């Protein structure tokens, strides 16, 4: 008995072990997504795994004894059998052979096949093991990667070509200028009778020559502008102007030009000054481009209106004509390069169609929007916006004199200005007199200056605080942009804190840093302080009258004909909303909208709004994204909603 137990025990153990091993293999066969099969020398399946059977829609047992001819198309089966025969006769396995295959459900896919011969213990081939894997996804990825690479390469070469083109245009234009200058001089000399008398007819011909020299000059200038914009070498030189003054400058010229065509050109200005911080020459270029286009494309007896409208934080300039209009087909590309508006007979088309594309780039460089609405036979409405700037004469006379002295002695400096809006109101609420407020503010300023590494701050630093108007002016000689920015940031923060500790919450402070060059505004280098001369001292800070916040919610726009447009992301202030939609709205049209704040869904805010400005969203290469960012301003927003919005805004920092 003892003997048998001793024998059976290991046998039993062996059995369990075998069973476990079998289970492992079975699990592998059943759960692996790859197709695995064993074939005999005649190509009959001895065993297939779950994946293979499922792929063919049968049970694994049903495939035993079948051949490829029973399962696949004849052509495919022949190929497979050939491979099988090869493997079995040569003993060389096939590894990872990629093939295109059509699945039984008709979908095209890629498979990788591996076939390995099986031998018996004498070394005779008795069949093969096959593994087939679906690699469709891998192939798709690979193809995507290849596509991406080739697109990348194309993009790079396009960019290179574009850069070369810009450089070429720039070089050629420069070369063209010199002979053009000579022609202009010589024709003028003859025209002015410097070298002898000229008869009436000759004068006429010379005048035409001069007109065309001017035209050529304009084209060359435009080409140079385009190449500068494209090569990013166009520098803007900002100064502060009243946009109304800017328009008035050229008003008489254009009114006369229009009158020659019997067109009435009317300007309408707001009563208050509208300060903008712009490159005057460049914006003048935009204005004159729009107005001369309007004159060019308006027939005799037509009307053109140039209007200035003050928006919440921007100013909008509109040039509205009763001209020939732009067809819907032309509208989307109107701001592209080399596009000449409609070639209708009877209009004298001049120029190469660069004006609007330059205007667009110039306006965008000024952080503005430019757009057009038009109807053939009715007319066109071109609009563009510029940011409004707060401007106050921050430099009193005494300060101005001291600044003048510093400048004369060649000291570079930074000028930081700080404006506390509604300071008077806050003062009342705090019940604080202007003297103590002045003291407090002065203490804040002192502490800030001390805080910013005192040794770096020049002794000549000076400041003027006018608490009545909430104005701070600080002059910092020999500091870097970064230091100046730090000081103004810290100052703003401390003053906010000060008001907050006196329970004045919704304080709004604008900070202006000063320079006539773009450098200080771009906050990019923080290295060299830029120099300026006294006559160029202005104070500007972007006009943001209202605090605003962005959040995600469902916002509904009720359009005419009972259509509803939805948008998800909004930017809200007490003055209005800004959102992205797929529909092109009409400037100045009025509509209704409703939205809720995400954390207070019970209150639905409903308001009437007016379309203030529109920005078409462009993809790479000026492709149309079919989306528009629009600025909508509230019209008579209900008081209860005003309260809700301002309460919500007060919570944001």
């Amino acid at each position, binding site marked *: 008995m003892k003997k048998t137990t001793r024998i059976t025990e290991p046998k039993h153990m062996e059995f369990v072990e075998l069973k476990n091993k079998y289970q492992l293999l079975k699990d592998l066969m059943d759960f692996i997504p790859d197709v695995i099969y064993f074939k005999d020398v005649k190509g009959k399946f001895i065993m297939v795994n779950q994946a293979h059977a499922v792929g063919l829609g049968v049970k694994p047992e049903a495939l035993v004894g079948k051949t490829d001819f029973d399962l696949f198309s004849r052509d495919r089966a022949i190929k497979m059998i050939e491979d099988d025969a090869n493997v079995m006769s040569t003993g060389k396995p096939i590894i990872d052979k990629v093939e295109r295959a059509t699945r039984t459900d008709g979908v095209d896919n890629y498979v990788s096949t591996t076939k390995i011969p099986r031998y018996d213990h004498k070394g005779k081939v008795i069949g093969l093991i096959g593994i087939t894997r679906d690699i469709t996804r891998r192939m798709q990825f690979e193809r995507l990667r290849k596509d991406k690479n080739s697109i990348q390469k194309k993009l790079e070469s396009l960019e290179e070509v574009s850069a070369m083109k810009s450089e070429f245009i720039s070089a050629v234009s*420069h070369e063209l*200028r*010199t*002979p*053009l*200058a*000579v022609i*202009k*001089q*010589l024709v*003028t*000399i003859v025209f*002015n009778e*410097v*070298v002898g008398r000229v008869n009436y007819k000759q004068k006429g011909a010379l005048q035409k020559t001069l007109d065309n*020299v001017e035209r050529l*000059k304009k084209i060359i*200038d435009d080409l*140079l502008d385009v190449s500068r914009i494209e090569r990013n070498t166009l*520098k803007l*030189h900002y100064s502060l102007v009243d946009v109304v003054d800017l328009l008035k400058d050229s008003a008489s010229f254009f009114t006369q030009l229009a009158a020659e065509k019997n067109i009435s050109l009317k300007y309408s200005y707001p009563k208050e000054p509208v300060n903008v911080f712009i490159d005057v020459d460049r914006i003048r270029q935009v204005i004159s481009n729009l107005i001369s286009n309007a004159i060019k494309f308006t027939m005799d007896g037509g009307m053109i209106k140039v209007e200035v409208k003050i928006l919440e934080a921007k100013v909008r300039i509109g040039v509205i004509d009763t001209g020939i209009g732009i067809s819907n087909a032309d509208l989307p590309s109107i701001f592209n390069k080399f596009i000449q508006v409609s070639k209708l007979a009877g209009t004298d088309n001049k120029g190469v169609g660069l004006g609007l594309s330059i205007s667009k780039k110039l306006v965008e460089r000024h952080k503005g929007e430019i757009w057009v609405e038009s109807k053939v036979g009715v007319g066109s409405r071109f609009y563009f916006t510029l940011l409004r700037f707060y401007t106050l004469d921050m430099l009193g006379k005494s300060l101005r004199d001291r600044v003048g002295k510093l400048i004369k002695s060649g000291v570079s400096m930074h000028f930081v200005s700080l404006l506390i809006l509604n300071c008077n109101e806050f003062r009342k609420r705090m019940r604080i007199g202007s003297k103590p407020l002045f003291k407090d503010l002065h203490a804040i300023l002192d502490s800030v200056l001390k805080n910013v590494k005192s040794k770096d701050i020049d002794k000549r630093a000076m400041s003027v605080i006018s608490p009545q108007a909430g104005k701070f002016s600080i002059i910092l000689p020999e500091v870097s942009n970064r230091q100046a920015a730090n000081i103004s940031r810290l100052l703003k923060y401390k003053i906010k804190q000060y008001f907050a500790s006196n329970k004045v919450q919704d304080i709004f402070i604008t900070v202006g840093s000063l320079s006539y060059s773009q450098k200080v505004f771009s906050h990019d280098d923080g290295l060299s302080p830029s120099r300026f001369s006294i006559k160029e001292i202005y104070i500007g800070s972007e006009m943001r009258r209202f605090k605003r916040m962005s959040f995600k919610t469902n916002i509904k726009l009720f359009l005419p004909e009972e259509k509803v447009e939805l948008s998800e992301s909004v930017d809200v202030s007490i003055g209005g909303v800004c959102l992205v939609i797929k529909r092109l709205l009409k400037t100045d049209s009025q509509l209704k909208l409703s939205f809720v704040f995400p954390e207070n869904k019970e209150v639905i805010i409903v308001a009437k709004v007016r379309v203030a400005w529109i920005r078409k969203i462009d993809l790479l290469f000026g492709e149309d994204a079919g989306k528009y960012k629009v600025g909508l301003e509230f019209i008579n927003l209900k008081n209860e909603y005003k309260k809700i919005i301002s309460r919500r805004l007060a919570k944001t920092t």
Partner: protein
Amino acid sequence: MIKKRILLIEDEVDMVYALTLHLEAMHYEVLSATDGQIGLDMARKEKPDLIILDLMLPKIDGYRVCRMLKFDEKYKKIPIIMFTARVQEHDKKLGQEVGADAYITKPFDAQVLLNKISALLKEH
């Protein structure tokens, strides 16, 4: 009345020709040089009443000519009008930094140039 003498330093000979016609019509005496080196030598030798100076010049460029004259006590009083095809504001600044009294871009209006000349000559 003694004619005022203007030195024109410009490498484009046709431009020199055109400007000379203009200036002589306005009863100025015109001297001309077609590169920076000759221009500088002539300015020192002839001491003209005014210099019209092109920016891009062979041998010595306009900036250097201007700087060398303006930083020299003997010649710094001679008014210089810088004159170039470049319109970039940057060049204008540079021109002013080296002491040019006025700056005109090509293609220019002859009247503008003549007005500038007479204004500068009156000043000095």
